[in-house]
């Protein structure tokens, strides 16, 4: 314990990150540049999320870490251990008990509350990265809210697939102003972004950007009048808890076409199975 400062990062770095977070909260959906530090894990493993969590963590916090909804996958386990070791904070797998939840690619099924912070790991913060390669130009597009290009992407989807085939990292408009990449969460989770009582923070370590949604922010998924946004999921019930309302993972069980659908949110699933639902 004593060889690390609380939550690994030094206090000056945390101050710098907190400033970026505060600015992000003041301008919802705006990508704030910050001096991302090198972390003891590779880029793509959540270095941005870890830095945001480290800067917001206090000793009284209860931390939950999920990866694709699961508490027991490699990424989640290693980040949880990292903070247990460097900050000594309490950890939990229960969504309702946690005060900070760091997540990769999911929003928990249980509704979040005002006392919680949700920290997202973001690989590519720029929603127009693959439409407009020039960062100088995308920044200008954001500054002038000149978002026709974003709609072109959805148009192309319908022209090619007959529907908006974007199923994750579905672009959203925040508080009627900035268009934002909600990180690669399934579009099933997009409605949960809207009017969420918890603070939502997004950290991209390699790209050195932080952005945020303050509590109860209006978040609108982009769409067309005649092709409205649909929060889709697999048309099955969970094979373990029987839930028909939660987002499902498809699990291949053998090499002869056997498969099952189970909740991606392991805590939600386990609690329902325990409760005899």
């Amino acid at each position, binding site marked *: 314990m004593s060889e690390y400062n609380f939550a690994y990062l030094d206090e000056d770095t945390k101050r710098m990150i907190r400033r970026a977070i505060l600015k992000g909260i003041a301008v919802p959906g705006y990508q704030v540049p910050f001096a991302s530090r090198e972390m003891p894990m590779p880029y793509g493993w959540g270095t941005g999320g870890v830095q945001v969590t480290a800067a917001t963590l206090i000793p009284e916090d209860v931390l939950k870490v999920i990866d694709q909804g699961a508490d027991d996958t490699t990424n989640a386990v290693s980040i949880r251990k990292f903070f247990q070791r460097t900050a000594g904070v309490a950890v939990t797998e229960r969504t309702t008990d946690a005060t900070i939840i760091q997540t990769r690619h999911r929003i928990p099924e249980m509704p979040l509350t005002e006392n919680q912070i949700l920290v997202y790991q973001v690989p590519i913060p720029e929603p127009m990265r693959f*439409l407009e390669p020039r960062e100088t130009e995308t920044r*200008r597009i954001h500054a*002038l809210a*000149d*978002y*026709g*290009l974003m*709609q*072109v992407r959805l*148009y*192309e989807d*319908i*022209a*090619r697939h007959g529907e908006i085939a974007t199923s994750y990292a579905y672009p959203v408009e925040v508080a009627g102003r900035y268009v934002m990449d909600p990180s690669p969460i399934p579009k099933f989770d997009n409605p949960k972004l809207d009017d969420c009582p918890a603070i939502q923070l997004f950290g991209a370590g390699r790209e050195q950007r932080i952005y945020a949604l303050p509590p109860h922010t209006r978040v609108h998924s982009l*769409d*067309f*009048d*005649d*092709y409205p946004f649909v929060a889709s999921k697999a048309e099955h019930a969970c094979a373990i808890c029987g839930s028909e309302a939660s987002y499902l993972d498809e699990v291949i069980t053998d090499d002869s076409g056997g498969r099952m659908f189970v909740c991606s949110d392991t805590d939600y699933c386990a609690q329902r199975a325990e409760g005899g639902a």
Partner: protein
Amino acid sequence: MMTQLAVADMTQAQAYTAPRPLLSVSNVGKRYGTRIGCTGVSFDLWPGEVLGIVGESGSGKSTLLGCLSGQLRPDAGEVLFDTRDQGPQDTLNMSEAERRHLGRTDWAFVHQNPRDGLRPGVSAGGNVGERLMANGARHYGDIRARAQDWLARVEIDPTRIDDRPGQFSGGMQQRLQIARNLVSGPRLVFMDEPTGGLDVSVQARLLDLLRGLVRDIGLSVVLVTHDLAVVRLLADRLMVMKGGHVIESGLTDQVLDDPQHEYTQLLVSSVLQV
């Protein structure tokens, strides 16, 4: 009472029809260091008029076009554009947001190389629809119908709406670029060598198409080219540039048939005859 009414009617009618140039350019100049890009250029462009700018390479045509369309910032002069809602506005001093708004509504820019004006990774329909979506269109069916309509108007088979520009020939790409620009119903189009790099038969077809569109819609065009045949077909008025200066201007036929300046005489006599 009668006279009063008549007077009121007359002033109103006058206010309505008072002719005003669409684009008013005075004394525009741009230097690259000590060299002159263009200098002291002034003209008025009236609604529905096509102005040709000709001259040899390096004469300042493209610099001038860049200055007029807001892509370059001139060192001197004033460019007034008659906007739809606010009347004449200085386009050089307006905010970038306003200029971009103009750029996707009332203005259009046709590049010499269609690859500069098209998005290669996006289908023809997406390319044409982008301006509509940028202006707030959010109905997929409508956007697609208008894109199809415009593809037909520039003589591209509407069934190819989902093909990428790379699958089109050079002439088709140029026509696609024109459709993409005209879909929002602009009033002023800047064209930089729209027929450059096309073979003569394709060029002739494109010119024919452009002439039809310009006359049908009543577009105002500033057309930069070094091809005198193109201006003869399209332009009402002509400006001849050399070394950054406008050396002669007037009605197209007048300038081409009776050139006054020695350079213009040389230029007109240089045209190859078949």
